[in-house]
């Protein structure tokens, strides 16, 4: 029995990680808000539970999302996760079924071959041995891919892979060693005893004919146990902690817990659920077009986790949302960055290795000092209107959009009031993106006051930036519509008579309208009604950012120009007559970046209006109200 002492590194590691995970989860649960606690409790005993189990199976084990994006990468993850899972499950069954006793400690299943070296030479047991060997081979095939990926990322279709810390590297090495050492340990043991499946048996026979297998075997059993133990001990301070934490995240998310606007246990769980896979680096345009490779979400999240000084990373993001869209774990990366931007100055703590095991640490919410006030804004007087048109600051910089919108609204006979014709107050979103929520709130209150007093049923804006904030951060009775939606409505109800323009055009989905607000179909419907719409390489939810984003206040003009040029090139690959967008900022950015004519969707529609402009009454405003109440 004294030779069994090698199992202890594994045993200690396993008990450590189990206890640690329970304690950590309990603390996280305790730190949840009362409402979130209730959500989680209710979720645990209801439908969300089944949903979570299903999601864990599909995502954490099979890795369906990664599979869809990249089959090779998906196979790699699946073979390691699902393969290991099966190996544990069937190993436990094997130990329980073929072992001396039932209900063995985990080490008896993991080191089954050591304890039962002569097992499995005949009948069902032999068949089972082949099956166990097959599972091991399955994992090893994935491992081989993982090693390739680390050294030649391009081979796996990954443009970039994440840089790792030294603890990550040790954990990675121990993870890589687990399965080869198991293979060799089992093979040597089988070689001595003439047992084993197709893999361990044959390899064992070959090895034992060349080497003193009986003397060598214990070393590999030690290596196997040590690799497992090391991996378990390092787990909480490395990226591999995402494996257990992701399970918790899935339960929390399915129970209806969301990222609010400040730090919480849920946001902390999210930061630990990041696997540092680097998919966010590959899709980030600052990387692909401007050569910036150290500001992406994976580094942001890692900085959060380890409490580093990440002010520069936090600020340097276009907030375009492409990484949110592809994150295989489903971390809300944009909202996390916004939360960090809302924080005041925070000293970097530089956690030591041991600090990082800390259980009580929590990112405190530090209220940022209010730096400005807009108290000088005088309240506006009441000006009733059915439909309000709010151009927004950016649209005032693209007067052609305003001219076009006026033509369209007049042509359709809409009775509207141009809310900021003589200049208005900012919608507040740029301040919010900069993390200045309280200042933004003053502007929001001011504008809300005007909109409420007008009694308008519909608020039309030409700017997706304003649109998003009107929808999400204002409490309005009026239905908020982007002009592409409103024009689509006018066309559908027959208020607009439009000709057909013989132009081949492409459409660029603005970030805040597409990914930000889910408006993809209305602009396309409008464009297709008046011109020939061609599809482009990356559209809808994977649309590229134009580079002009208000979300980034630190990116240089040169880098922005590089992004704009790259995006414009992608969009105009089919050499269209015109590049159409639905955002004044995108338009302004593209005009500097391409020779192709750039127009707003409103300009395209205005060009299709019959001349001279006819004035007819419409039911536009009424219909808008109807759709609003319909939901």
């Amino acid at each position: 029995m004294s030779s069994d002492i090698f199992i202890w590194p594994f045993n200690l590691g396993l008990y450590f990680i189990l206890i640690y995970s329970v304690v950590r989860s309990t603390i996280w649960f305790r730190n949840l808000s009362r409402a979130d606690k209730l959500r989680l409790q209710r979720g645990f005993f209801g439908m969300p539970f089944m949903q979570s189990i299903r999601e864990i199976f599909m995502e954490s084990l099979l890795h369906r999302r990664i599979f869809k994006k990249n089959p090779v990468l998906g196979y790699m993850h699946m073979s390691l996760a699902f393969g290991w899972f099966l190996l544990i499950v069937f190993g436990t069954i094997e130990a329980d079924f073929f072992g001396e006793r039932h209900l063995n400690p985990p080490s008896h299943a993991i080191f089954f071959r050591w304890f039962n070296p002569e097992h499995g030479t005949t009948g069902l047991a032999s068949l089972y041995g082949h099956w166990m060997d097959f599972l091991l081979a399955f994992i090893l095939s994935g491992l081989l891919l993982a090693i390739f990926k680390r050294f030649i990322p391009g081979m796996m279709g990954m443009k970039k892979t994440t840089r790792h810390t030294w603890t990550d590297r040790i954990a990675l090495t121990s993870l890589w060693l687990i399965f080869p050492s198991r293979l060799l340990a089992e093979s040597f043991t089988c070689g001595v005893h003439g047992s084993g499946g197709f893999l361990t048996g044959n390899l064992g026979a070959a090895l034992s004919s060349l080497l003193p297998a009986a003397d060598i075997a214990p070393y590999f059993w030690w290596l196997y146990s040590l690799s497992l133990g090391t991996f378990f001990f390092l787990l909480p301070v490395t990226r591999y902690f995402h494996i257990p934490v992701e399970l918790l995240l899935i339960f929390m998310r399915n129970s209806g817990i969301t990222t609010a606007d400040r730090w919480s246990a849920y946001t902390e769980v999210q930061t630990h659920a990041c696997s540092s896979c680097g998919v966010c680096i590959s899709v980030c345009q600052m990387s692909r077009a401007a050569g910036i490779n150290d500001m992406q979400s994976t580094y942001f999240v890692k900085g959060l986790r380890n409490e580093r000084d990440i002010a520069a990373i936090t600020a340097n993001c276009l907030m375009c949302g492409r990484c949110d869209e592809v994150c295989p774990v489903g971390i809300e990366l944009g909202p996390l960055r916004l939360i960090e931007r809302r924080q005041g100055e925070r000293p970097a703590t530089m956690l030591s290795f041991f600090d990082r095991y800390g259980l009580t640490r929590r990112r405190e919410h530090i209220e940022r000092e209010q730096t400005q006030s807009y108290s000088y804004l005088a309240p506006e007087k009441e000006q009733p209107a059915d439909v309000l048109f709010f151009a927004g600051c950016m649209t005032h910089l693209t007067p052609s959009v305003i001219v076009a919108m006026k033509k369209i609204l007049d042509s359709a006979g809409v009775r509207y009031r141009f809310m900021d014709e003589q200049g208005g107050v900012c919608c507040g979103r740029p301040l919010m993106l900069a993390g200045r929520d309280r200042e933004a709130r003053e502007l929001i209150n001011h504008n809300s006051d005007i909109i409420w007093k007008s009694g308008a049923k519909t608020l039309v804006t030409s700017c997706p930036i304003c649109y998003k904030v009107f929808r999400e951060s204002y409490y309005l009775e009026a239905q908020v519509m982007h002009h592409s939606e409103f024009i689509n409505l006018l066309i559908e109800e027959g208020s607009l008579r439009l000709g057909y323009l013989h132009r081949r055009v492409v459409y660029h989905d603005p970030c805040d309208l597409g990914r930000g607000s889910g408006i993809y179909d209305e602009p396309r419907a409008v464009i297709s009604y008046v011109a020939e719409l061609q599809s482009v390489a990356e559209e809808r939810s994977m649309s590229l950012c134009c580079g002009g984003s208000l979300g980034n206040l630190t990116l240089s003009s040169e880098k922005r120009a590089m992004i704009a040029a790259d995006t414009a090139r992608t969009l105009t690959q089919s050499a269209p007559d015109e590049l159409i967008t639905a955002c004044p900022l995108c338009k302004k950015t593209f005009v500097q970046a391409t020779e192709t004519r750039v127009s707003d969707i409103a300009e395209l529609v205005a060009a299709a209006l019959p001349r001279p402009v006819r004035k007819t009454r419409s039911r536009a405003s009424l219909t808008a109200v109807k759709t609003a109440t319909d939901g």
Partner: protein
Amino acid sequence: MKEKRKHVIVAGGGVAGMEAAGSLAEMGIRVTLIEKGEDPGGHLLQWHALFPGRRPAEEVRKYLRKRIAHENINIITRTTVEKIRHHGHEIIADLSGGTEERADAVIVATGFDLFDAHRKEEYGYGIYDNVITSADLEEMFNRKRVVRADGSVPSRIGFIHCVGSRDEKVNNNHCSKVCCVAAVKQAIEVRKLLPQCEVFCFYMDMRMFGPYYEELYRESQEVHNVNYIRGKVSEASVNINNRLVIKVEDTLAGRPLKMELDLMVLMVGMEMSKSGARLAEASGLNTGINRFLESADHHYGSNRSGVAGIFYAGTCTAPMNITDTISHSRAAVEETVRYLGGR
């Protein structure tokens, strides 16, 4: 055997190209002057009067026309040089018509393009009737009629400086140098032509770099009552009376300002010409971050390209006024002749 006469191609028939062609011809060198427009003359063709003395532009045009009326000069118009390549000691210029021209050296004098004011959409050029560029105003001076689109006489005109210059947003960080003094000149001319019309200039800095420029600036204020407001116009719109309303921050007074204008003049800057950029790209000539041609040495080699037999003259290397362009062009000729003699 008698040595063959030297032949130089001058790409571009503006001020720099015409001066270079004239100087070379005078020295007995055969010149082919290639101009993309109908006639040589470049941007000078549109000018009514020149700063600082407001002399008629025709006087300089006449000088340049005389300069190229020489038997050694062959002028090809409506043609551009698309590519310059080497063939042994010879240089071959591929022309836009598909033909080629062989020579011993080339002087690149492709000049500049005016910044396309449509790209600064917030100023409303091409959208509002009464927004014009400095070049459009010069045309009005030629016709001696400065009026609004509806034919009425403006009672307040605003000049917007630095349109397309010193502006990161349009990828132009450089200063176009001459627009400041051009605005002063045009402001004075407006005041002389329409004594009842108020004139405002909205500027970032007044860069009066040449002789008598500062004096002209002073004269415009003291004698002609031109108003200068330091601040950049952020946007323009039109009110119900079809007058332009501009928003600007008066940075000296430190307050925002709204003003109605009858006519707004955009002082458009200078950019590397499109045809010049095409030529540089095709021929492998270096360009700087400002997209103008980059000379071999900033201080003592501004006419050299760094490629044997190719020399630069005038505003294809940087914005310049006419005086400097002519000097630069003569220096290019000197470099070219030295190169031809040394072979």
